[in-house]
């Protein structure tokens, strides 16, 4: 008897009937998961959207509860001693609050239709206090919640009572959860659950990933040596997706991300389909595209907008309308990467760069949730480089090549938060907790020294100077157990739990420009919100692009930024674009390969091929493994352009370090600008002549040793590093989060983490928080790890091309000068004139 035959046998009659009534047949993977559960095994289910993943995850639970029968009676919590035959059976963890709510709604149907004695409830930040209390006392059979809520539940004295009866944990969208610090937090909470309820098994639900074994490890406690893995069930793949690049009739832009050129073509695609999801990469692009679509929406199609800055209620409204089949299109960001399955989407349009193949495939999977029909998707590159990236993504999809990131090494700041949480719950012994924490896959390699350092940090700050014993947050009792010193500590922990640290936002208000000596007039319209760190970089009078216009920064009044309309044609200040995913290393390599192989150009649109041919003629096309560096003079400045294709963040760090070196070499660099593909540096000194005379060496300039002293020096003052440190300090609980409305009073009570960073860096450079900040900088805002890999890759493989003017390949990055914006690139028209001049010059 095969596994499937066996498992069909174990599907109770009641369930078999229900499937039949619905006209469904249980899917193979659903039955396989049931068999795993019956055998007491944890399992990872890899399945595309629309494969009935959720039902598969819950089927074992529903079957078990159906067989168990209705709960007998209620019990009050009195601590660990109470043993119960029934209680919380299954815990479901989702990355999104909304998803938990939706899944609960979706599960209610089978529960009701089969008349199962199942009580299922959600617990999110929105759950009223009375209900939360009742849930602790009298838990439902199935509780649907988020990692943060789970952490809070675990950090209480009655956690052993609440979770003692637990049988199963279902982790939804696991591929998405494990890539962030939330995944670290979840892994630690899971380790706690394994300790509290050794009988539990886990079910992970995931999209296809590059390394499923990483996820399998995440799902089970890790032994002290070697590794343990959950079983794996792979759902049959559906029909191959039908993906194409938009063959635009319009002129392909050289830079920018608006995709304005393809607006009518996108609209026609929407008109030709029942329901279309239009994915873009940033909120501003979503806003922009949404407005532009409505401008040409002659047919009055119901087109909606969905992104993370919109109010929750508004997002829910869009989701509900979508579920009800009332919408023709939704313009959305990654806010819809995850979430409920909508059966009726028949087209996905991805506007802009795909960034990564797995990510794109997951988005495409949002179309047509009937597995036997192919998902249909159209890629719309918004500029020429993105054409190459789209082409690379199409090849990757054809090869079904995944590029999800590898499993994280657990962060130390998250560990510190967890340790405090543990002390808020049951007092712990260090030996026990260390063993427990190492059962979590991301922390399997955690050293005892690091663990002890984290405990020390939580207790008294972890300082070499033992000054704070009397202010300790946790203390070891005579029984050897660590417990909190004051209930206030637990209160604060609860307010600061979680790993998501939002940037402080300021409202942007439009006012009339101030005349000299006068007060800035108040009032005016609010244009939106902008990150505080961005404004801190500005000085009054600076111009920047926001909400589709060039604005002049006037002043900050309380928590609002006052701006006025500017007559400038070039915004002065670029900005770091947060929240954008960098181009994956895998796709980057493919893009380089396409570029290097002129035969591959045949697949590209004529305009792009022509562009590359002129580049080949005017400058050169770098071989796939080489780094091309071009130098040329322009408008009394000297430019150096390189094309590492390593993503904006790594390029920005490279730009910072390179300008330091050029400064030392007397080249008087004036600035730099980076995009996903290239970096441009310009200065007063003639770098070209110095290179040609051998007075300046590119090998030295791009030497890996820039990640030594130069990096150190820069980190000492880097605003990005200080921002990273601030996040670490908040997650680890050194300082507290700021809450809206409290700013004014709290600002007086808070201390700038920049000052703390400076002092700590000087007096205890190996402090836990600095190590955490370094680990984050390696992969986060500074992407140092990727830069290091690039520098090592191109060693001895630098090709220099001295030019007498701008090269075609350099035009896109040069167009970024002064146009990088906080929220997007809506100023295209204004900049077109400037762009045209450059292009004419390059293509002559």
């Amino acid at each position, binding site marked *: 008897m095969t596994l499937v035959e066996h498992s069909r046998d174990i599907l109770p009659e009641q369930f078999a009937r229900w499937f039949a009534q619905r006209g469904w047949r249980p899917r193979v993977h659903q039955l396989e998961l049931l068999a795993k559960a019956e055998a007491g095994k944890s399992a990872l289910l890899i399945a595309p959207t629309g494969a009935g993943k959720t039902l598969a995850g819950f089927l074992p639970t529903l079957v078990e509860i159906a067989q168990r029968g209705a709960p007998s009676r209620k019990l009050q919590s009195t601590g660990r001693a109470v043993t119960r035959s029934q209680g919380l059976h299954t815990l479901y963890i989702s990355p999104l609050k909304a998803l938990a709510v939706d899944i609960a709604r979706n599960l209610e149907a089978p529960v009701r239709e089969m008349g199962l004695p199942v009580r299922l409830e959600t617990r999110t930040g929105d759950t009223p206090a009375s209900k939360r209390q009742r849930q602790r006392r009298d838990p439902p059979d199935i509780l649907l919640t988020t990692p943060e809520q789970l952490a809070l539940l675990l950090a209480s004295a009655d956690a052993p009572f609440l979770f003692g009866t637990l049988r199963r944990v279902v982790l939804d969208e696991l591929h998405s959860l494990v890539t962030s610090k939330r995944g670290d937090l979840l892994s630690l909470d899971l380790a706690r659950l394994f300790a509290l309820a050794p009988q539990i098994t886990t079910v992970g639900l995931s999209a296809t990933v590059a390394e499923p074994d990483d996820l399998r490890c995440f799902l089970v406690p890790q032994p002290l040596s070697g590794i343990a893995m959950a079983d794996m069930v792979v759902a049959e793949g559906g029909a191959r997706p039908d993906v194409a690049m938009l063959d635009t009739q319009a002129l392909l832009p050289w830079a920018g991300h608006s995709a304005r050129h393809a607006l009518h073509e996108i609209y026609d695609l929407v008109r030709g389909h029942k329901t279309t999801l239009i994915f873009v990469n940033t909120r501003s692009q979503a806003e922009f595209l949404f407005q532009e679509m409505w401008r040409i929406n002659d047919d009055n199609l119901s087109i909606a907008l969905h992104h993370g800055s919109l109010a929750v209620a508004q997002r829910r409204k869009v989701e509900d309308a979508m579920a009800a089949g009332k919408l023709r299109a939704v313009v959305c960001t990654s806010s819809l990467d995850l979430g409920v399955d909508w059966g009726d989407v028949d087209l996905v349009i991805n506007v802009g760069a795909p960034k990564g193949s797995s990510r794109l495939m997951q988005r495409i999977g949002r179309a047509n949730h009937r597995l036997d029909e192919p998902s249909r998707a159209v890629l719309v590159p918004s500029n020429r480089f993105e054409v190459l990236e789209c082409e690379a993504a199409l090849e990757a999809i054809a090869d079904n090549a995944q590029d999800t990131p590898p499993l994280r090494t657990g962060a130390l700041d998250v560990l510190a938060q967890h340790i405090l949480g543990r002390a808020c719950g049951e007092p712990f012994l260090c030996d026990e907790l260390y063993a427990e924490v190492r059962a979590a896959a991301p922390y399997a390699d955690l050293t005892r020294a690091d663990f002890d350092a984290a405990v020390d940090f939580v207790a008294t*700050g972890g300082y070499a*100077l033992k000054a704070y014993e009397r202010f300790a947050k946790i203390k070891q009792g005579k029984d050897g157990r660590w417990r909190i010193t004051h209930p206030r500590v637990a209160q604060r922990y609860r307010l600061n739990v979680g790993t998501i640290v939002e940037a402080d936002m300021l409202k942007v208000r439009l006012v009339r420009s101030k005349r000299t000596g006068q007060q800035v007039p108040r009032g005016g319209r609010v244009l939106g919100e902008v990150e505080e760190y961005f404004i801190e970089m*500005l000085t009054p009078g600076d111009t920047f692009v926001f909400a589709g216009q060039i604005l002049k920064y006037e002043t900050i009044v309380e928590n609002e930024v006052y701006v006025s309309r500017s007559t400038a044609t070039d915004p002065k200040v670029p900005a770091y674009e947060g929240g954008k995913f960098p181009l994956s290393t895998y796709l980057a390599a493919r893009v380089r390969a396409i570029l290097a192989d002129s035969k591959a150009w045949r697949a590209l649109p004529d305009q792009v091929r022509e562009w590359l041919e002129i580049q080949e003629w005017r400058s050169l096309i770098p071989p796939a493994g080489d780094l091309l560096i071009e130098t040329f003079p322009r408008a009394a400045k000297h430019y150096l352009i390189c094309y590492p294709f390593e993503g904006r963040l790594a390029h920005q760090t490279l730009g910072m370090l390179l300008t330091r070196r050029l400064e030392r070499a007397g080249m008087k660099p004036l600035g730099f600008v980076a995009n996903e593909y290239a970096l441009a540096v310009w200065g007063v000194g003639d770098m070209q002549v110095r290179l040609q005379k051998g007075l300046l060496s590119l090998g030295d300039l791009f030497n890996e040793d820039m990640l030594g002293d130069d990096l150190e020096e820069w980190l000492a003052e880097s605003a990005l590093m200080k921002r990273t440190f601030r996040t670490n300090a908040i997650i680890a609980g050194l300082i507290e989060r700021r809450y809206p409305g409290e700013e004014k009073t709290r600002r007086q009570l808070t*201390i700038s983490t920049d000052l703390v960073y400076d*002092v700590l860096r000087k*007096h205890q450079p190996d402090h836990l928080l600095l190590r955490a900040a370094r680990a984050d900088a390696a992969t986060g805002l500074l992407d140092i790890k990727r830069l290091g890999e690039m520098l090592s890759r191109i060693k001895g493989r630098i090709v220099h091309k001295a030019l007498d003017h701008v090269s075609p390949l350099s035009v896109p990055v040069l167009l970024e000068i002064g146009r990088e914006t906080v929220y997007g690139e809506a100023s295209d028209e204004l900049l077109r004139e400037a762009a045209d001049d450059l292009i004419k010059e390059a293509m002559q």
Partner: protein
Amino acid sequence: MTDAAAAPYFEGILIAGTSLIGDCDGAVYWPQERLLAVADLHFEKGSSFAQRGVLLPPYDTAATLARLGRLIMRYAPRAVIALGDSFHDGGGPDRLGDADRTQLRALQAGRDWIWITGNHDPEPAKNIGGDFGGALVIGSLIFRHIPQGENGEIAGHLHPVARVSHRGRAVSRRCFAADATRMVMPAFGVYAGGLNVRDAAFADVFGTLDFTAHMLGDGRLYAFAARHCRPD
């Protein structure tokens, strides 16, 4: 100061006819009186936060004392005046660590030491040596904590910081805010925050924007007219 180039640490600032040296470590030295003045030391700010559960690195007092020690080595003053808010709170003197207390005593040895009281430390403390006073008049100068805009006044309290921009990049530094008749000194403590000199509080002291921000640079001061400094 004719010897300013040879001795890069300081710069002459004339207040009410008295020639003072503005040191780029954030102190004022009065050669004629061999007097060193510092403002807003905010000792034990770290432990002040710590007792409220925010365990900031406890190195602030030692770091501030080390900087003060360098200045005392440099000028060997006959007297040191701390212009108030020397401790972040009233409990600060009791929380002072042993090593820091020893260091403070060593710095006080052989010279007069005057603690001007501030709003953070209004009461004289017992165990920190030195003499206490609400203000101190010497010659044409008056040293006090909160500036009142008086002629010859050397005060602290406001923590002046100036911000200038050049080639699109902004630099923010602590500074002496001074005109010909009065001065507001920069905060000296490493954890002390700052207030932009374009804030209305400075206009109240100086009456106009006709004052200079002497920004603390690396090895020297940089003077900018306040009206050329950037508001936040």
